[in-house]
């Protein structure tokens, strides 16, 4: 089991979700986060351009069994890039960490079948 954590652009959320659903990955957790990477963005404040220190991003967390790791990564890779295939600084990152255990609270099931 792996925990896939993807940090993506806010605007790509719909596309990424559609790609994941298409790949039959439907159990996800989404949260709004802010952070600092290579990217700089501009917003407007009373006619002034401002560059926020921390840029809002979306974090998607998906726990998957080994067989689904590559499918999930491919789905995110193809949908989270700006401009289709090119990609632009700020498109985000994917982290994969080993997942020790997974327990379904309702039944107490453990491991792969609880995912």
């Amino acid at each position, binding site marked *: 089991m792996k925990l896939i954590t993807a940090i993506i652009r806010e*605007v790509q959320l*719909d*596309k990424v979700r559609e790609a994941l659903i298409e790949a039959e990955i439907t159990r996800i957790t*989404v949260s*709004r986060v*802010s952070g600092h990477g290579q990217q700089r963005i501009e917003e407007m404040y009373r006619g002034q351009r401002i560059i926020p220190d921390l840029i809002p991003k979306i974090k998607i967390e998906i726990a998957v069994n080994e067989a689904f790791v590559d499918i999930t990564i491919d789905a995110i890779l193809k949908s989270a890039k700006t401009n289709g295939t090119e990609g632009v600084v700020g498109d985000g990152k994917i982290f994969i960490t080993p997942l020790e255990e997974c327990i379904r609270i309702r039944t107490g099931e453990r491991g792969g079948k609880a995912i």
Partner: protein
Amino acid sequence: MKSRWKRVLMLLLFSLTGTAGLYASDAIPIDSGATAWMLTSTALVLLMVPGLAMFYGGLVRSKNVLGTIMHSFVAMGIISVLWVAVGYSMAFGKNVLGGIIGWNSDYFFLKGIDTNILDAGIPEYVFSMFQGKFAIITPALIAGAFAERVSFKAYCLFITLWSLLVYNPLCHWVWASDGFLFNLGAKGAIDFAGGTVVHISAGVSGLVAALFLGSRRGYPYQVIRPNNLVITMLGAGLLWVGWFGFNAGSSISSGLSTAQALTATQVAAAAGALAWVIIEGLHQGKATALGFASGILAGLVAVTPAAGVVQPYGAMIIGILASLICYMAIQTKNKLGYDDSLDAFGIHGIGGIVGAIFLTFFIRKSWMADAAAATGGSWTMWNQLGIQAVAVLIAILFAGGMTFVIIWVLNKFVKFRSSEDEEMAGLDRTYHGERGYGMLNPS
């Protein structure tokens, strides 16, 4: 109150004849009571615009909240300026071009009414500004039908053209003393405060625009949830309060007819809201807050044309019928699958039609007697029903047809619909470079 209107408008007519300056400076004393109430009403109707902004703003996704609020706010800018420049003249000037539109060069930039006092004892500036607020809120209502997917620039151009080509002519026909719907039948088509002019025209135009532009991305398969029903409820509350200016102010006086309209308004809103939550409770098992707000609006919209001619029991029945029929209309929309996003047609279009038609059955006896006297013979409910139906039909066909033409032509020059990327990024970021909320979770 029709006769009150007539007197007001006769005066407007007088002021066209070139004697306006002479007429204005002497004689008519200012009725400070009426003027005070009309000033209050003017402010109350303006309050409905931010109310509408909050109502609509809460119903969209968090990425579109500012863009949706701006649809209402920018109307306060654009339409106010247009109204002073040409709108008042087009709506309340005397017939030109065979009565399609009014015009009076004295009203151009309101330059000739500086010292005019209307027959009702209020300065003409007050009447003009009061009417201007109606012109503001009407195009803003349309925005609910195509929320979350239109370009800001195209929207601004659209409401400009719509105000000039749809609102002003319709307002002239229904409310100007020489408008042809004002003079239809015995005592004219009844539209006390804007059932046809405001709600039917906005609702039908919204429907046409929504069909033309197509659904939002992902609709109806992806669930699109309101970002903040709290501000929606506050907006609905402000609309209810503001509606007292809208309806009771439309008596252009401060007296008996004002009180009658005010009472009808309160009763219809309350009955509509209760009816909606009861229907919803029976149908879905839960009485929702948004349902209550929708019922308030359905009742208020339906009583708008009726407020001057119905007694409280009639207003109550109209409010209940409006909620019932609007509820069914929205259920039907969900089955048909077109994307009238915030139900501009479902509430304002349908509610306006319900009010304009059903008010016929609850008209005060005194009004009917006046109408019979005006024809010199008899005037029945069914005669009036025919007149109401004609007015409704004209409003539907004219608003729907013109809106289609405006959007079709406009779309050749400025793309009305947002691109897919712009829509996904949201109106706030795409068109305004801002965000409505800090770190609210996406919905």
